């Protein structure tokens, strides 16, 4: 069953009417390919400024691919991706990043030849207003403690923190976050949740790919449900109860 | 089924080829086909790029040359001595080299081979830059006169056939299975209880031994062993042959060797004679850029797609 995103034009987020919102990211008819395999089959979605949305779905449903496509990391993609008013379907990744996008990849991508601090300082600033290093170390004391360790000597969870931390520094205000709670201790997850709320308050736009529905549900304004490279449903936070059957069908929660 | 027919045709061709094609050229081709196939064992199936295989090829060539010329051993024994020497050298170099992978492995093997090369330049038994000349071909089994090119050809063909069989068997053996598992995921293979270094070392020694067999045979065919055989360009050439023919395919290296040897041979006296290195270089470049799977690999891919 397909639920059209347009049905919810009238819902409100963050106290304001949706239609008053500026479109931060608009994806239309996006197809993406890995070599010959067709991974995304025409995705349409719009994310408004200041909104936190999730991409939910089973393993292999195409959530990561969507983020990678936005970031320009997939060789072959067609359709349209408009970010902050600019068409970026043909743009190079570094150009896209400089529009103010931060990407936290699923595989973390910590650089093993750099130490924690160098990893943290690595991404160039793409916009003013990033968090200061002190703020970040405050948030993740583990990292402060291990700051001179080589990146991949960190434990799995520490690497996850570092991957998240380093994009908070750059001033990017559109964040593409792929499974950031993976492998983290429950306490850290709690803390990450608080961070996301804070970021939302600052007006960041966030696209969150999650398995951990329990983590995502209280944070998100809307949920996009993906299956086999399609977006099969869009669910507003107010509809969580009424659309429970959608979750059951596609996520078997 | 299909491959059986293919093999039968290949055998028929090989048996009749010297009637049409100059047998010495064919023998050279077989020697290098064997060399490349042996090399492929470690690169194509072991995933390790050795840039020092010339040391085994050349080392065996010298030892065989010396054994036949100075010690006067029978031909078969001379070849075996050279091959064994290459195996021992492979064991020594392998013990140091297999501790590393990738580029490091390539560089270490290159450096070790370079040491061997310098040894050959100045060691008394190699004849320095003049090489060992006039190595007697002798007789096969004490009766067949190998001075006759036709006899020699079939002698070489038998060696090639046996070695080739051994190589394809190795690839498709219990050992081959472990080897490809190691290439796929070394840590996992370890955690399943395999001492990966031992397997890699055995693969390396097998590869160097067979490369040595190729070198020994070549010495008997051409009756000489020279520094060319041990120079690092030779290591590069065997990589080229393997790559051109198709990495990790059984017949690929032989096809690649055939192409390169034929090119070298026919270019050497044509209008492009002075351009041989340039032409080889261009093939290298084209191969890496355009058809990385090599002739056989691309062909297989093409057939897979069209049928």
């Amino acid at each position, binding site marked *: 069953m397909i639920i059209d995103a347009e049905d919810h034009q009238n819902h409100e987020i963050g106290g304001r009417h949706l239609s008053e919102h500026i479109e931060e990211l608009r994806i239309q008819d996006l197809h993406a390919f890995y070599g010959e395999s067709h991974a995304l089959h025409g995705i349409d979605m719009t994310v408004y400024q200041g909104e936190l949305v999730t991409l939910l779905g*089973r*393993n*292999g449903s195409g959530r990561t691919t969507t983020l990678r496509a936005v970031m320009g990391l997939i060789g072959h993609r067609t359709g349209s991706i408009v970010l902050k008013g600019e068409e970026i379907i043909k743009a190079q990744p570094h150009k896209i990043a400089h529009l103010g996008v931060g990407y936290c990849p*699923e595989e973390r991508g910590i650089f093993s030849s750099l130490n924690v601090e160098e990893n943290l300082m690595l991404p160039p600033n793409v916009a003013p207003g990033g968090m200061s290093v002190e703020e970040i170390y405050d948030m993740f004391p*583990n990292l402060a403690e*291990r700051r001179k*360790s080589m990146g991949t*000597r*960190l*434990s*799995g*969870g*520490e690497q*996850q*923190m570092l991957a998240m931390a380093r994009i908070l520094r750059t001033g990017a205000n559109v964040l593409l976050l792929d*499974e950031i709670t*993976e*492998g*983290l*201790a*429950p*306490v*850290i*997850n*709690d803390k990450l949740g608080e961070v996301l709320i804070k970021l939302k308050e600052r007006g960041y736009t966030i696209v969150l790919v999650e*398995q951990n*529905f329990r983590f995502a549900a209280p944070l998100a304004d809307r949920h996009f449900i993906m299956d086999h490279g399609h977006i099969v449903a869009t669910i507003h936070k107010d509809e969580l109860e009424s659309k429970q059957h959608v979750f059951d069908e596609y*996520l*078997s*929660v | 089924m299909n491959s059986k027919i293919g093999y039968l045709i290949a055998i028929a061709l090989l048996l009749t080829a010297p009637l049409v094609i100059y047998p010495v050229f064919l023998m050279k081709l077989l020697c290098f086909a064997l060399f490349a196939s042996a090399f492929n064992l470690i690169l194509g199936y072991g995933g390790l790029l050795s840039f020092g295989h010339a040391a085994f090829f050349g080392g065996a060539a010298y030892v065989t040359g010396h054994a036949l010329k100075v010690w006067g051993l029978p031909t078969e024994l001379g070849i075996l001595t050279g091959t064994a020497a290459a195996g021992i050298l492979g064991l020594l170099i392998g013990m140091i080299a297999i501790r590393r992978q990738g580029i490091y492995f390539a560089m270490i093997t290159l450096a070790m081979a370079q040491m061997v090369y310098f040894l050959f330049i100045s060691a008394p038994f190699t004849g320095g830059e003049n090489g060992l000349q006039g190595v007697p071909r002798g007789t096969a089994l004490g009766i067949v006169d190998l001075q006759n090119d036709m006899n020699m050809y079939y002698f070489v063909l038998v060696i090639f056939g046996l070695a080739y069989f*051994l190589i394809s*068997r*190795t690839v*498709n*053996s*219990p*050992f*081959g*299975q*472990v080897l*490809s*598992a190691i290439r*796929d*995921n070394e*840590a*996992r*293979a*370890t*955690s*399943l*209880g*395999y*001492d*990966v270094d*031992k*397997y890699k070392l*055995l693969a390396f020694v*097998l590869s160097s031994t067979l490369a040595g067999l190729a070198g020994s045979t070549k010495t008997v065919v051409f009756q000489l062993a020279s520094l060319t055989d041990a120079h690092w360009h030779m290591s590069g050439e065997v990589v080229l042959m393997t790559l051109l023919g198709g990495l990790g395919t059984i017949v690929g290296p032989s096809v690649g060797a055939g192409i390169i040897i034929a090119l070298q041979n026919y270019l050497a006296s044509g209008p492009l004679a002075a351009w041989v290195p340039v032409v080889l270089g261009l093939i290298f470049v084209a191969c890496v850029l355009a058809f990385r799977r090599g002739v056989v690999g691309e062909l297989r891919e093409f057939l897979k797609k069209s049928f």
Partner: protein
Amino acid sequence: MSDKGQYILQTQGLTKEFKGFTAVDDVNLNVKRHQIHALIGPNGAGKTTVFNLLTKFLQPTRGKITFNGRDITSAKSAEIARMGVIRSFQISAVFPHMTARENVRVALQRELGTSFHFWRSVKTLNALNARAEELLTSVGLERFADVVVADMSYGRKRALEIATTLAMEPELMLLDEPTQGMGREDVELITQLIRKVSAGRTILMVEHNLGVVSTLCDTITVLQRGAILTEGDYATVSADPRVKEAYMGKAA
């Protein structure tokens, strides 16, 4: 209980120091035979490091490890594996260019003792196919025996990894975050699988998914900053305020 004693695996004063940083600090771990034992703790507590020490992917700085009463502190990785201690990895560990059957067979073939036999045909391994398929069936992969693993989904790769591990007939399985990165459905599947294979074996696992831990595990050891904070069954451990504070947060 066999004469080998109640504990299959014990460590005494196990310590690992990295350049002035103590990742594992004087850990005395006692794993009871035929139990599912969990190792939990905050990120960076040293859980993976303990696994690496037990399987000798790292050398302990100090301390002693005994397996079935035998001192294995100085044994090598492959040796330990041959004794029956098999680990899984945090990222899936399969042989991607081989088929599922071959993956399992690689584990099975070791006991034939022909793994160095390069002159023997690979067909001699066909004798192992029946057992391999049996193992694949046990993890629900019977239909995928001939599929090249690179083409399989993540969850199936995890299942295959378990099948391969089982092929080794391990007495002790070490699983490092077996459900990490899995959808709910797969988590469920793996949980059941672990329960199924735990019969007659001992399992030591690291896991952040408290749901999994609470349903599966008999004993839980909590690590913090390399040292053991507390130990006990789920109810005891989750009630401990220190564990709540350091690890579980609101989840508990």
